[in-house]
């Protein structure tokens, strides 16, 4: 990939005015889909994503039933209007891959062994896409699972780091993702400090990889604060959130 000279200006600011280690504006809200057992809405930059969870419930088709644990299924899907040019609504190979990656990223956190012979379906719908939609979708999906009351070892948070003009930066937006030279999305269980998602797309040397990884972890921990606040707000009301955030 070629890089535009202007991705980071001489003051160290990025095209949207952020510093290299700054997240985009972030907003998470739990419980918006009335029909679902759990749901969450996230805005992260221009990403607008809805996640919903149905389950634990009977498995259809039955032959997929697992006798010792829940079957966790995940579907990442983009609305036709979510991208700059219209997206064909049929799922692409990219959507199939991300669906798998998100399932693998949620599995370590969900206590699937507590729900044998059931299915837990996680839907992540990208209403508007920006860079990092899989990370934001992962963050939302984990809130939706918690909102559904499903037992979890830990939440899962997603955040990416990447490389622009040879600098390692946090949380790439769409333009940065396209023009930059690497993107490293990770998924983290923030309390357990374990990684459940990692992908890399781009070129990083040893040292850059190390720095990008550490920065993405830092980003995850920041996102985690907002994620917790959303759940506290849903279950304990606004007052507690303020207290929480102050602490």
């Amino acid at each position: 990939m070629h890089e535009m000279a202007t991705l980071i200006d001489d003051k160290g600011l990025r095209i949207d005015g952020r510093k290299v280690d700054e997240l985009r504006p972030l907003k998470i809200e739990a419980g918006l889909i009335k029909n679902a057992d759990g749901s969450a809405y996230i805005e992260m930059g221009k990403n607008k994503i809805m996640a919903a969870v149905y389950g634990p419930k009977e498995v259809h088709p039955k032959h997929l039933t697992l006798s010792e644990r829940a079957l966790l299924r995940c579907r990442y899907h983009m609305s036709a209007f979510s991208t700059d040019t219209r997206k064909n609504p049929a799922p692409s190979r990219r959507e199939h891959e991300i669906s798998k990656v998100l399932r693998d990223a949620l599995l370590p956190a969900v206590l699937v062994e507590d729900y044998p012979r059931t299915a837990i379906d996680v839907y992540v719908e990208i209403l508007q896409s920006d860079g990092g939609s899989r990370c934001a979708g992962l963050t939302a999906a984990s809130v939706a699972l918690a909102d559904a009351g499903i037992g979890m070892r830990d939440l899962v948070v997603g955040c990416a780091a990447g490389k622009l003009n040879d600098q390692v930066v946090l949380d790439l937006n769409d333009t940065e993702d396209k023009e930059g030279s690497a993107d490293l999305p990770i998924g983290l269980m923030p309390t357990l400090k374990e990684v459940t998602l990692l992908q890399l797309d781009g070129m990083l040397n040893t040292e850059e990889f190390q720095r990008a990884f550490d920065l993405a972890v830092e980003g995850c921990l920041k996102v985690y604060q907002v994620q917790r606040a959303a759940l506290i707000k849903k279950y304990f009301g606004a007052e507690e959130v303020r207290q929480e955030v102050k602490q």
Partner: protein
Amino acid sequence: MVVTKKSLLVQQLRRTQLIDFLSKGKRLDGRKLLERRPLSIELSPIEKASGSARVKLGNTEVIAGVKVELGTPFPDTPDKGILIVNTEVLPLSTPFAEPGPPSEESIEVARVVDRGIRESEMVDMSKLGLVKGKKVQAIFADVTVLNHDGNLLDAVSYAVTSALASAKIRRYKVTGEEITATEEFVPLEVQTLPASVTIARIEDVLIVDPDMEEEAMMDARITFTTDDRGNICAGQKGSAKPLSFDQIKLAASIAREQGDAIRDLIRGVIA
């Protein structure tokens, strides 16, 4: 087709209760017979779309997004643009949907809403032609269903009408057969605001805007879409039981009347 998980006995008891309520002019959620659920419209939630609207009709919630692309005209209308309405009932939105190709319900909803837009001549398609027989503007109005609590058809209708009425589309300069995209965006001109109203019959009672539970128990359903001048421009009967002549005529007049109220609401939002 919607199937509830409840046992047969519970369903029958609930139906008895519903009929009792209806006979007293009330509904289970407290509405009057001809009362719609609260309708709220948020314009432009999707900045990347040319126009968009998020509609809540009670707990039914949908987002419509409009994208405009260059396309080839249909052979029988070489100088007219193209408009396609598409609806996806996501498994996100209801315990009853399955991933896969569009369901029968998705297709019906999209086609009826499409007819309302098209037949009302809301958008003057001849203004979307660029090079006769070769290039036109193609408008895609895609709808994502977020929460399906009944009467999807009306919610999708309001969302698509609002998204189109508030859309801004790119201007093209045409010289001969050469098309140049400008950076100027102009409002999509609309000639009328079509609005659909769905009426359900349960026993002998007509109710407006059935919710999911009422849909599961309704005998018949009829939808009429009207335009600014009170013309009916689309109609669709559904569900497993018939309607009498009088019920149809009554439904048409209810649709005309409530269509005006809905248009006023939409007009207020897009103003």
